[in-house]
């Protein structure tokens, strides 16, 4: 009985630690951003000036919010067909065949590559390619970082979707086949409807990862603090402006960067909540 009690205490303490850490983070982010919100008010969220020059300091987060959302949504749109097809390939079409095991391992391998390596690849391989194709004069911008982000989040969406697709009961599929359904019909009418909430959840997770990615994006987005005008324009994201500028920041600027961190936290939380809500509605 003693060990029962001990387990309970350990589990309780671990959960409590998570709670404390999360609320401590929110507390310190909120505390640090008070100065920025006091100075600029709600304007901080919808203006895009980022002027750190002493004397005329003025900060607004719109450029970074826009950059973050646009790159992440673009990455998700690119990732969606690729990840879903790969998941179906591994989880259904070539299930338990050697080829699907190879593809599956490669997908997991992609997940293990550090983001700086993706950044390097984007910088030295993808970016010159974009210049050669004439899409943009120097190759930095939303498009380049979006593509790299898409590749980075594919493994997250793929491996969870694969597991979910594999979990669809065989009875259901066999019933459909016995009624004369083709493979495509089984996928669209049985597999996807049954697995959709799990697949959706996997894309929410992937999207969350894209929102917070820092290093690879910083190397490729151009770090121009403006609202991007086109897909090939340069921009900046919330995570990368923080990574770039916190080192030399103090006072109002530091507070503004912390406020951006808080906003990023809130955006991620909102997207997670929306995802959970949608999953509940569907299943």
């Amino acid at each position: 009985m003693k060990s029962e009690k001990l387990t309970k205490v350990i589990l309780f303490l671990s959960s409590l630690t998570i709670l404390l850490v999360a609320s401590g983070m929110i507390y310190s982010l909120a505390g640090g951003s008070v100065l920025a919100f006091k100075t600029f008010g709600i304007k901080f969220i919808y203006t895009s000036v980022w002027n750190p020059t002493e004397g005329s300091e003025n900060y607004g987060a719109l450029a970074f919010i826009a950059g973050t959302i646009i790159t992440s949504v673009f990455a998700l749109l690119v990732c969606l067909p690729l990840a879903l097809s790969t998941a179906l390939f591994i989880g259904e079409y070539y299930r338990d065949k050697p080829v699907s095991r190879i593809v599956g391992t490669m997908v997991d391998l992609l997940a293990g590559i550090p983001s700086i390596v993706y950044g390097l690849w984007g910088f030295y391989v993808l970016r010159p390619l974009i210049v050669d194709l004439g899409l943009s004069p120097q190759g930095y911008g939303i498009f380049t970082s979006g593509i790299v982000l898409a590749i980075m989040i594919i493994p997250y969406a793929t491996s969870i979707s694969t597991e979910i697709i594999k979990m669809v009961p065989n009875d259901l599929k066999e019933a459909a086949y016995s009624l004369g359904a083709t493979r495509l019909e089984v996928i669209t009418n049985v597999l996807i409807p049954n697995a959709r909430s799990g697949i959706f959840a996997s894309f929410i997770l992937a999207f969350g990862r894209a929102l917070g990615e820092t290093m690879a994006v910083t190397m490729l987005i151009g770090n121009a603090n403006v609202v991007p005008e086109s897909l090939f324009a340069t921009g900046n994201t919330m995570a990368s402006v923080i990574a770039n500028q916190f080192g030399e920041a103090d006072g109002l600027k530091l507070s503004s960067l912390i406020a951006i961190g808080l906003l990023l936290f809130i955006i991620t939380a909102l997207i997670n909540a929306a995802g959970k809500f949608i999953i509940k509605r569907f299943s």
Partner: protein
Amino acid sequence: MKKSLIIVAIAAIFASCGNGTKKQTGTEKSSVSLAAAGATFPQPFYNLIFKNYSEKTGVTVDYGGVGSGGGIRSLKDQVIDFGATDAYLSDDQAKEMPAEVVHIPTCIGAVVIAYNLPEVAELKLTNANLEDIFMGDIKKWNDPKIAASNPGVKLPDLAVTVVYRSDGSGTTFIFSDYMTKIGKRWAEKIGTGKSLNWPAGIGAKGNPGVAGTIKQTVGAVGYIGSEYSFAQSIATAKLQNAAGNFIEPTIESISAAAKGEIPADTRIMITNSTDADAYPISGMTWIILYKEQAYKGRTKEQAEATLKLLDWVIDTDAQLVAPQVHYAPLPASTVEKAKAILRSVTYNGEIILK
């Protein structure tokens, strides 16, 4: 059984904590190890000379390259023996410090204009050219304004891509200080700072980031710390100094920039120097420390070690090493002023260096 294990584990944790604090107070008493933090720009120089110094005297210096802002913050929090910064403390910043801080210049660096035009071996830029390029007004390299400064040079029909530091940086501070001095439009619209509201171009992190981006992008132009560009032999533009001469950035032309009038507290930007041979975008870097060294339980031994080290840093031994790592040494007149400042630093009101 399990319970006793946990008790042992907890006891071990507490014991290790206790050890840690004991150790810390222990080193404070013996005081042969100094902690410093700050600018990354002079870090290669500091790393080299601090190593030399510790081989000579046994005093070890732990220098953290956390940026000028971080150096100032650490000194303000009184967690280090001295800080390092590329931008001297403004009067407002000095007021925010808990006690009076003195500045000791240690070496001189410069900001060079690097470019990537494979067919242009030598590029001259006037101050007006610089302003037009970095304000985003000159969009093509074959613009007649650039051509006018470079007679006989065939400039390509390429887009100008400005590359700047996306992180806050002393390099940006020195560059923008110069631009503010020479450009009216720049002074009005952009001003001076460690990071700026850039009108054009793309940002990259750190000197290596800017240099790498320029190297990879044909038609790019940007500013880089001289110590980095010298080490990497990057193509740099000749700039027009206050005397009207086009000057190539070299150790000699950078050192010449500090030959002018330096105030007694050494807090001055030496950009746009009036010396005829000076490279115009040069700047000193400083070590900052409290004038009263008795704070937060620091021992007299520690204060003496700090002062002796700094006195050595500005002396011939260390200054001769500077060009090896691509920094310009301080001219004799500046060293004299710095030595006088060091001799005003006290411990409990008593002058430390005699």
